[in-house]
């Protein structure tokens, strides 16, 4: 009993072939979209690799680019198969390539599934890399004269302005690091000397943030310095003030951006794992079982599996077993040439 068999006449076969052809070319377009998404994601990761310690994993975008190219190639070939399937001469030439092609498609779908899992799991890696990278970025903010870190200040300022965030977890991260370089501190000034001596590590710490933390939507001009000192500013209460500087931490802000990208890519991949393999199987079996190959208008039957689902599984298992056994040495046993007396 064939599994899920359907009857096909000429019209139905032609319609199936045409429908499949369109589906395959749509899949080629989706493959191109996947390829460009992979490039876009790679560029976005590179743009901000400085706040991720140059340590970010490019596994997902690289795989995505590969998958996009493979998808284009496989689906274009599938489209060509469908286009040629209605011509009996061309179909007989294509027949031997059909089985390996369908196995390849199944393997490709497995790769897609793996990529979907990676998209959702790699977000943890991105989060951890961001946390570490931002911590170091804030520490090296002042080192604009150290080669390799000259542009850390610029990158971090741009990130805070673009993503509307301040600091790693929140703006208080800036209170714990010295973000003004010693080059710009007047060491002969008593106030400066006191502040430097007031902590163990000799850092110039203060309750201020850089200008990039300022919120342009605030009704009053930005208060950057003496943030926790209410009396330093007129009509200011730092506990209730929430429009002055950005409240969000940059780790949260940048992570939700990347997480959004990865979730959409994952969703698109799930959508791509379509069942064109099923359609192609129906078409090929319908063409093979034509009772009279010379008469194109005869009816034929198409199916997904030749035998039932359980029987096919049993067949597959026995094949795997015999494959294993053929490699074993036979223990003892009589040679088949000796006849029993």
């Amino acid at each position: 009993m064939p599994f899920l068999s359907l009857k096909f006449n000429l019209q139905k076969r032609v319609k199936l072939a045409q429908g499949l052809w369109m589906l395959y070319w749509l899949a080629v377009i989706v493959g191109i979209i996947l390829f460009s998404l992979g490039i876009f994601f790679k560029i976005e990761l590179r743009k901000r690799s400085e706040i991720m310690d140059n340590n970010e994993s490019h596994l997902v975008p690289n795989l995505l680019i590969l998958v996009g190219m493979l998808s284009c190639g496989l689906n274009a070939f599938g489209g060509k198969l469908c286009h040629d399937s209605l011509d009996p001469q061309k179909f007989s030439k294509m027949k031997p390539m059909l089985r390996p092609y369908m196995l390849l498609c199944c393997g490709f779908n497995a790769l897609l599934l793996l990529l979907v899992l990676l998209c959702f799991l790699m977000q943890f890696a991105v989060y951890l890399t961001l946390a570490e990278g931002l911590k170091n970025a804030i520490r090296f903010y002042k080192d604009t004269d150290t080669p390799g870190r000259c542009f850390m200040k610029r990158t971090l300022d741009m990130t805070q302005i673009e993503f509307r965030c301040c600091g790693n977890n929140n703006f208080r991260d800036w209170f714990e690091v010295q973000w003004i370089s010693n080059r710009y501190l007047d060491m002969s000034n008593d106030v400066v000397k006191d502040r430097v001596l007031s902590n163990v590590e000799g850092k110039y710490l203060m309750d201020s943030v850089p200008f990039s933390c300022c919120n342009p939507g605030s009704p009053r001009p930005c208060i950057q310095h003496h943030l926790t000192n209410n009396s330093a500013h007129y009509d200011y209460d730092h506990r209730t003030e929430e429009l002055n500087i950005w409240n969000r931490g940059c780790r949260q802000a940048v992570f939700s951006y990347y997480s959004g990208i990865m979730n959409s890519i994952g969703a698109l991949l799930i959508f791509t794992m379509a069942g064109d393999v099923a359609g192609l199987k129906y078409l090929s079996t319908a063409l093979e079982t034509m009772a009279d190959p010379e008469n194109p208008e005869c009816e034929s039957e198409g199916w997904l599996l030749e035998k039932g689902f359980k029987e096919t599984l049993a067949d597959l298992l026995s094949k795997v077993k015999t494959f294993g056994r053929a490699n074993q040495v036979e223990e003892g046993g009589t040679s088949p040439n000796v006849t029993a007396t």
Partner: protein
Amino acid sequence: MAVLKVKFTKTRRDKLAQILWILNWISVVTGVILFSLGLFLKVELKKREELMAEKDIQYVPNMLIAVGLIACAINFLGGKICYDCVDSTKFLRWKLIMLPYIVCTFFFTLCVLVGALMCYSMHWELEEALDLGLMQAMRFYKDTDMPGRCFLKHTVDTLQIQFQCCGNSGYKDWFQIQWISNRYLDMSKKEVVDRLRSNVEGKYLMDGVPFSCCNINSPRPCIQQQITNNSAHFNYEHQTEDQNLWMKGCRQALLEYYTHIMQSIGLTVLITWLFELSVLTGVRYLQTSLENVLRQGDPDSESDGWLLENSLMETARIIKSLGKSNQINTANNGDPNIDVPSTSKAHYGPDNVPPKEKMETS
């Protein structure tokens, strides 16, 4: 004497009709492009209308939108006409419309050219509008509690950050206005009161700028307050420091941005104009050659196509006489039945015989 006469065989006519059909459809696409360019410009101008004074500069994108839509319609009709022109029986349907269509399209291409020139001329009006608008915006920067001006601060700040500029012509413009609202000034402090009293208008002026003027490329943390006071900051000299704040004025930055857009749009419109003109020339040739074919009677024969039947001077004269024949003849009180004696020399035949006969008699 016809202007630029070209001979057309039947196959050449058919090919011309087909090519013109394709070109008309390409022109529909360019019409859509013009329409979307006009829409884009309108949106860009509207986005920053708070920073521009009340000058009427919306006429440029409106003109582009109108021109784009009319181009689509005209070229769609032209495509249909050219498609039908391959068959000479279908041409009879369009015969009467074709000449008015060509004249209308000719005037329309003039509109397209005017549109392109307007793109380049908008520059000066835009500069004035921006100058006045930015000055107003900076004056009302502090009025975040007044309805209608609540978001001006946000607009100006995001403008300075995005376009990397400060003030109208430069950062010193901020020294001449009070950009901190009185709500946030402690009037009980002596120094605040002194500063307010130090100028005629009672404004709190200082040599400081808002945070949005800060240059992100600066190696040192931003110096926003007491900019002209070298001793207020360690190792700082305001005359040589050019990386601390954005040096460009916002008027110049915005003007450069819009001029760049306008130049690209103007170039596209000029190219579209040339394309439309060439399509129009092709349609004119097609029309004249098909009319001549009809006049000759044989649909498969050769025919002439031209731009103008007579020379330019004669065509001008014909147009003038067409205009005159529509005027009322005031001498006869408008009655066409009264015989008006001709003032020109009458042609009676033998009296005007050439001198050859006279020579014979002599």
